[in-house]
């Protein structure tokens, strides 16, 4: 329990340090939110100056940081100049969409990776193993964006909808039809995102199982006439699990950052487009929330993985 408290404190400290770093790096970059506004003929220089003063952009760095921090403490999470709204209001609905997309594709990718990786390692060099490896290598070579385009191509040629998380007439649908509508909208983005994270997962699963299969204690168990099924379930898979659980934690972060790109390409109403936009127009508080969100997500993933390791491994309980 005290270990958990320690980890939580560590995570909080990590987020604080990271937020300071983002502030410093944003300061190093030239310009601010209103730099682009100078080109707008309707905006006079006096007006821009007034706006800068109004949003406190003229204040020194540490004051701006403290103002942001107090806004976070009030539960607003900062203020978006572009949308003239607290960041929390912008983030929550979009974050739900992103989590839905990332969670579903993570589930899909891991199921496929476990099945293909374990089956491939069990009959290493067999037809399934070889075709999996070739497919995975090909997938690794295709850029994410191209995969997204292929997904769009598929959507155009099928009845599957794309863009947005729901249809326009969503509000008028019955409960069952709403569920189907949501799932239909998820199919293509989830598949594309799962495919982007699949190659690394398949290879890791396969390698871990292969290594475990080769361990002397597995060989000894075979020598005792222990059946193939028990061999896999009681010896090989538990031995292969540890590195995979660690990878599971790391895959959280990769999936979320991958999801931001895919979302932009496929018109998924998640955090991706918002964060990308905040990056180009220097809407600092939105960008900050995005970066801290990804970081927190990755951190939670690792926490879950570490918790699983403790649960699953009797050695840590001795």
């Amino acid at each position, binding site marked *: 329990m005290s270990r958990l408290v320690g980890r939580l404190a560590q995570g909080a400290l990590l987020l604080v340090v990271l937020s300071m770093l983002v502030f410093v790096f944003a300061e190093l970059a030239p310009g601010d939110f209103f730099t682009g506004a100078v080109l707008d003929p309707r905006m006079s220089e006096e007006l821009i100056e007034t706006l800068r003063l109004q949003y406190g952009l003229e204040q020194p760095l540490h004051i701006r940081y403290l103002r942001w921090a107090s806004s976070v403490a009030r539960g607003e999470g900062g203020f978006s100049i572009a949308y003239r709204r607290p960041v929390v209001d912008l983030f929550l609905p979009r974050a739900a969409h992103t989590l839905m997309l990332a969670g579903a594709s993570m589930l899909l990718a891991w199921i496929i990776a476990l099945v293909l990786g374990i089956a491939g390692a069990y009959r290493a060099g067999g037809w399934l193993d070889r075709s999996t490896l070739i497919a995975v290598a090909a997938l690794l070579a295709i850029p994410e964006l191209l995969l997204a385009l292929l997904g769009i191509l598929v959507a155009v040629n099928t009845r599957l909808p794309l863009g947005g998380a729901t249809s326009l007439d969503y509000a008028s649908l019955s409960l069952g039809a709403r569920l189907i509508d949501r799932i239909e909208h998820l199919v293509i983005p989830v598949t594309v995102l799962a495919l982007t994270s699949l190659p690394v997962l398949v290879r890791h699963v396969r390698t871990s199982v292969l290594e475990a299969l080769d*361990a*002397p*204690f597995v*060989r*000894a*168990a*075979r*020598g*005792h*006439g*222990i*059946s*193939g099924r*028990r061999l896999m379930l*009681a*010896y090989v898979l*538990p*031995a292969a699990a540890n590195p995979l659980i660690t990878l599971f934690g790391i895959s959280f972060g990769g999936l979320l950052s991958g999801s931001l790109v895919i979302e932009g390409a496929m018109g998924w109403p998640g955090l991706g487009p918002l964060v990308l936009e905040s990056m180009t127009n220097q809407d600092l508080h939105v960008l900050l929330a995005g970066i801290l969100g990804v970081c927190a997500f990755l951190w939670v993933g690792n926490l879950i993985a570490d918790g699983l390791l403790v649960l699953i*491994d*009797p*050695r840590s309980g*001795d």
Partner: protein
Amino acid sequence: MSGGPADRAVLSAANISMRYRRGGKLSGSEQIQALDGMSLEVRSGEILALVGPSGSGKSTLARCLAFLERPDSGEVGFQGEAVPWEDVLAMRGLRRRVQLVFQDPARAVSPRFTTEQVLREPQQAWQQRASPQRALDWAQLLAEVELDPKVLPMRARSLSGGQLQRLVLARALVTEPDALLLDETFSGLDLSLQAKLANLVLGLVESRGLTCVLITHNSALAEQLADRSLVLSQGRVVDERSAPDASTGGTS
């Protein structure tokens, strides 16, 4: 089990060859000839030493003789009959009769199991198929390998090297094998422990009437323990030596 004539072969290999591929398929693989037409016979009740430098194919041979790996060509025989590699169930039954004891006992035991589980696993697998159910005499088995019963609830990592080695020996005896293959079992131990374990194994061979194959790079040790030594090099048998005082062959 070893009541037969002293010159009957328990295990035999006839012209077996085995080749490994090192490196990936795309990166220009290099073939390694681990066994190159090797033939040998292990007579009932004898202690046979296989001596050779690393890379001479000792461990590959051990895995073939324990029926864990099928050679690319040639035949492995058990009690005069060729091993039926295709028959999965028959192979499972056959494997328990020849037990391989590995070099590094810490890696030969699943880190997740307690000592008791380690010993129970092979017993359960065996009893599932054996028609007369027999209870395992734990106390006797542990006494045979001189292992303190206190270690039963402990996991592998809390045992000492000597205790682990004894545990692995005990595990090999659970299924009452006919032959014991010791793959560098005594290497990497200090001399007094080495002597203790060697004496223990000699005692077991005597009391259980086991046939024993001792795989080692240490020819002095081989000379001391074995009735007969085969010298291996590059996947072949290149020399045979008999111990002068073991001309009678079988020990029982």
